[in-house]
Every structure is written in C-alpha cells, then in structure tokens.
C-alpha cells in the first residue's frame, strides 16, 4: 500500500514538473532503488500470499506488473549499460538520425545533432520524402476581399497574376506568403516566405492608378480590414490558413553490406523495425522537404513490457469480469 501511495504521490509531483524533469526524476538513483524495491515486493507477494499464486486473475495482474517493470528497466539507459558490460551487446537506447534525400546514414545522434551516440550495423537510405495535405484545404482557393471608399465590395482569388479593376484603379495580386517574414541581410530588409507551416499568411498586391503610378501593399490574414490613405481600399486576405498536413512519409531502404535488404515507407504510427531498432517518422525539413528526421529506439525489453501488458489486461478482465460471468452462467445452469 505504501509503495502504491508513494508512486501516486511521485506521479502527481512529476505531472507538475513536466515530462522532461519527470523523466529525470523517475530515472534518478533513489527512484531506481524504488523500482527495484517494487519488483522485490512483487516477488515477496507471490511467496507470502498464496492467493496471488492460486487465483489466475490476480497472478496475471501481478506478473504483468512485474514484467512491465523488468522490461522497462532492461530497456532503460542503465539497462543497456548493464547488458553491454555483462553480455558485450552494444546497443544505443535512443537517438535521432537526419537523412537527406538520396543519402544513407548509420550514425545515431543526440537531439541537437551535435553529438554522436552510436553506430548502426547497417545504413538507412532515404529514397524519398513527401507530405500529404487535407484535400479540403487544397481545393479552397485563397481569397482577397476588397472594400472601396464608396462602400463597394469585391472578391478576388488571391493567386499571383489575378487582376481586378476598381473604378479607375487596377489591383493585381503579386505574390502570396504562407508565413511572411522580414529578415535583415547585409543591412537590407529581405522579405521571405518561411515554409508551409506558416503562422503569418499574407499577400502582396500592386495597385495601379490611372496616372500610371503603382504602389505595393502587403495584406496580412491576421490583420484584416486595414486601409491605406494612398488608395483608401480596405483589404482582407483569407488563405484558409496554412495547409493542414494529413501525413508525412519517408521511403526508406536498409542497406547492409552494400545491398538493399529491406525497404519500407514509414509515417507517423507506422515505424520501421529492423536489427533490434525501431525507426520513427519524427520530423522533416519544413522549408524544402529535402531531409527527414527519424527517431531511433532500441527494442530491448520491449517484448517483455508487451507481455506484461497482455497479462495485465487479461488478468484484470478475468478477475473483474469473466470470473463473475462464468459464475453467473454456472449458477443459472444449476438452478
């Protein structure tokens, strides 16, 4: 009971700390002792309480918890160090790989890519990378709403080259931005569009007056309805937001001894498993889509954890549901 209470209190504290600090807390030396103590308590429970051995539901629940604990410890960084020291098996617990299109990579790096954590016994080649967007967003064209000084309203598809005549003036769409940004390069202002995941959609328009003069204006989606003294036009831009990503895919190939031994397209929720590691679609080059970032995790201890999951679920279902249903059916038959 004390161990359960302590874990509950520590989990509450961990929730306030946030995931990063909580991970450090639960992997700290005192907590490592706690995990070992908890495992020993489970074993002692089996010896002390015959009910835990004889009742299949209780046996599975407690064995399941013990397996999850053991599997987690085996898969931890400390577990990997112990396995390396006693069995000579060297595996990197986790890390990241940045692979450019057409290139192969075999080094596992830290999250900031400044430090090499390990080397795979094979290479991974990125054949291709692509992003899919939701169709609704692709089909809805961006739109420019125009209100003149006289109160007349116009709408224009905000595609470069589109034009509209507003009385004597002419308005033309020059360029659209998914994420409008201004950078200072060599003491000069440079207007850029920073990728598809923009937060500042905008459109550049050119307004020509009958005397042949023209001036440019930038219309920002998040600042709708601004008007300028020069032309008195009230302009609003609706881009339908940045294109919403449906999914992103990396076409990978495993290269071993110079030969392609496996190829798989991975996406979020569909990792690649090979050579004792899982490779996950983690991130990508949001500007040019020229590289992909994979997160790499060793599978040490994973199947022990999964076995624990199965035992825990089947055990609880048996102990709290099926046992009673079986008894109910048996009683009904006897009646």
């Amino acid at each position: 009971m004390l161990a359960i209470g302590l874990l509950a209190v520590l989990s509450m504290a961990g929730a306030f700390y946030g995931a990063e600090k909580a991970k450090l807390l639960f992997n700290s030396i005192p907590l490592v002792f706690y995990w070992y103590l908890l495992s020993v308590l489970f074993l002692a429970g089996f010896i002390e309480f015959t009910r835990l051995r004889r009742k299949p539901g209780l046996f599975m629940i407690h064995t399941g918890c013990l397996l999850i604990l053991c599997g987690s410890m085996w898969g931890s960084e400390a577990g990997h160090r112990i396995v390396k020291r006693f069995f000579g098996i060297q595996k990197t617990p986790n890390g990241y790989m940045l692979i450019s299109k057409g290139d192969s990579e075999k080094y596992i790096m830290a999250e900031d890519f400044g430090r090499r954590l390990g080397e795979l016994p094979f290479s991974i080649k990125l054949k291709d990378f692509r992003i899919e967007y939701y169709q609704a967003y692709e089909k809805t064209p961006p739109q420019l709403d125009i209100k003149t000084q006289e109160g007349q309203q116009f709408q224009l598809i905000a595609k470069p080259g589109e034009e509209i005549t507003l009385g004597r003036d002419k308005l033309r769409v020059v360029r659209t931005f998914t994420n409008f940004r201004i950078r200072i390069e060599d003491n000069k202002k440079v207007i850029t569009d920073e990728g598809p995941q923009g937060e500042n959609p905008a459109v550049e328009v050119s307004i020509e007056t009958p005397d042949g003069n023209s001036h440019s204006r930038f219309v920002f989606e998040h600042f709708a309805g601004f008007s300028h003294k020069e032309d008195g036009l009230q302009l609003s831009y609706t881009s339908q937001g940045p294109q919403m990503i449906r999914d992103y895919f990396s076409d990978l190939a495993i290269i071993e001894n110079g030969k392609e031994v496996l190829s798989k397209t991975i996406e979020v929720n569909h990792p690649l498993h090979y050579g004792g590691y899982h490779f996950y679609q983690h991130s990508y080059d949001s500007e040019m889509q020229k590289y992909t970032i994979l997160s790499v995790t060793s599978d040490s201890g994973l199947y022990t954890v999964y076995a624990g999951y199965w035992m825990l679920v089947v055990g609880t279902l048996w102990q709290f549901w099926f046992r009673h249903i079986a008894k109910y059916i048996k009683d009904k038959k006897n009646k």
Partner: protein
Amino acid sequence: MAIKYTFLGLLIYLTIAAYLFAFLATITGKKKTGQVIYLMGFIAAAAAFAYRWHDVRHVPFQNMFEVFLSMGIFVYPLSIFCRRLLRVSGEAVDMLIGVILLFPAGFVFHAEPQMLPPALQSWLFMPHVAVYLISYVIMVKAAIQAFCYLKDKTGNTKENLVGYEEGTYRMICFGFPLLTLGLILGSWWGKLAWGDYWGWDPKELWSLVSWLVYVGYFHVRYMFGQKHARLNSSLAILGLAAIVITLLWVNLSRIFPGLHSYAG
C-alpha cells in the same frame, strides 16, 4: 458561453432537456414517463454523435467538445446495464449525470470541426478514447454510490438492488478493466506514434494516478473488507477527483503542457 445555433446544437439541447425532464419525472414518482423521456434523450444524443461523426469525418473523440458529447450517449446504456445486471441503483442520478456531462458540450466548448493531425490517425484512437470515456462514466457512478454510502450507510436495497458499499465495489470492478485497457492501449499507441510507451507526460502521469487510486481501493478492500468501508468510499471519490484532473485540468490548464495538448 458557446451557445450553438446549429442542428447539432439543437440535438444537444434536446438531449439535455430530455435528461432533465426524465430526472424530474423520476424523482416525482412518474418512473415510467421518466424512462420513456430518458430513452428519447438517448436517441437524440446518439443522433448528435452520429451527425458529428459524419460532419467531421472521424470518430468524434478529438477535443473536449466531442469528448463530452460522446460521454452523453454512454450514460443511458450504462445506466440500464448497471441496474438490470449489476443491480446497482441510481438511475435518477444517472439522468442528472447526463445533463452535467452534456452541459460543457452545449454551453462551454466550441464545436468547430478539426482535421485529425497525423498522430491521431491510428486505429487505436477509437478504442483508446472510447474505453477511457466509458470507464470515466462508470467511475462517476461509483463515486456517487460511495458518496451516498458516506451520507446514508444502509442504501437502497429495494427492488433487489445492492447497498451503496457493494454498489461502489461493483461499479469499480466494472470500470477498472476498462481503465486498465485505456492505459495500456494509450501506452502501446504512444510507442507506435512517438517511439516510447511511456513519455512521463502530465496526462500519462495523472492517468496513472487515477489507476493507482483504484488499485489502492482494491488493496484496502481486500485487506480490511467492509471494516473500513468509509475509507473504501473515500478512495472511490478520490479516484473520481484524479479522473477529473486527468480529463479537465491537464488539458485546460497551462500548468501541464505535454504531448496530449491537442485534446484541449
């Protein structure tokens, strides 16, 4: 306030009104009328759920609006199941639970449809959230039984129904495997989507706390039986408090930023 002047909003308000009238009819002794209105409320709730599903083109479990909308439809079948098979009382209170659960969907949260981000496009999305939502409704019932025990130890033993202490135990026995399944499915999904079956995320930690409180309940009840029944009942109420924090506080408060932030 986010009042909805839409067909979906109409269905939600109809359900709330039906559950409320069913409650009033039941407590004023018109049980049969209450039952009929309760069933009508459930049909309206199911229609709202189906309409939303069709509208957003995925099972409506993505955000707080959809979560509360979905819990509104689980109340009726669970209420009937608990009374007829588990012999646990509290049908009138269940109607009120239905009103309370649908209130945030009707008046608090906005209903703008959202596309599913890549991480949520998994077959595990539906079972993981569904088992959690069902278990939450069950644990609300368990906490109400426990609260009633703390107020009135004898309980309603009429109509072949069990007392409040036993009712609490039966409800927790019913809900706990689903709570466990929700935790395990979430962990498995985390492994497939993020590469780790446990990320020490605030939502994960609070869901572990909820699970541990009920584990504590079973251990206390096994050790002491009904000798410390008030302690058992208090733990059942504490379990619900942990669930409320897991479901609401973690998603709505900025204190707990984490991987589950899309659920807000």
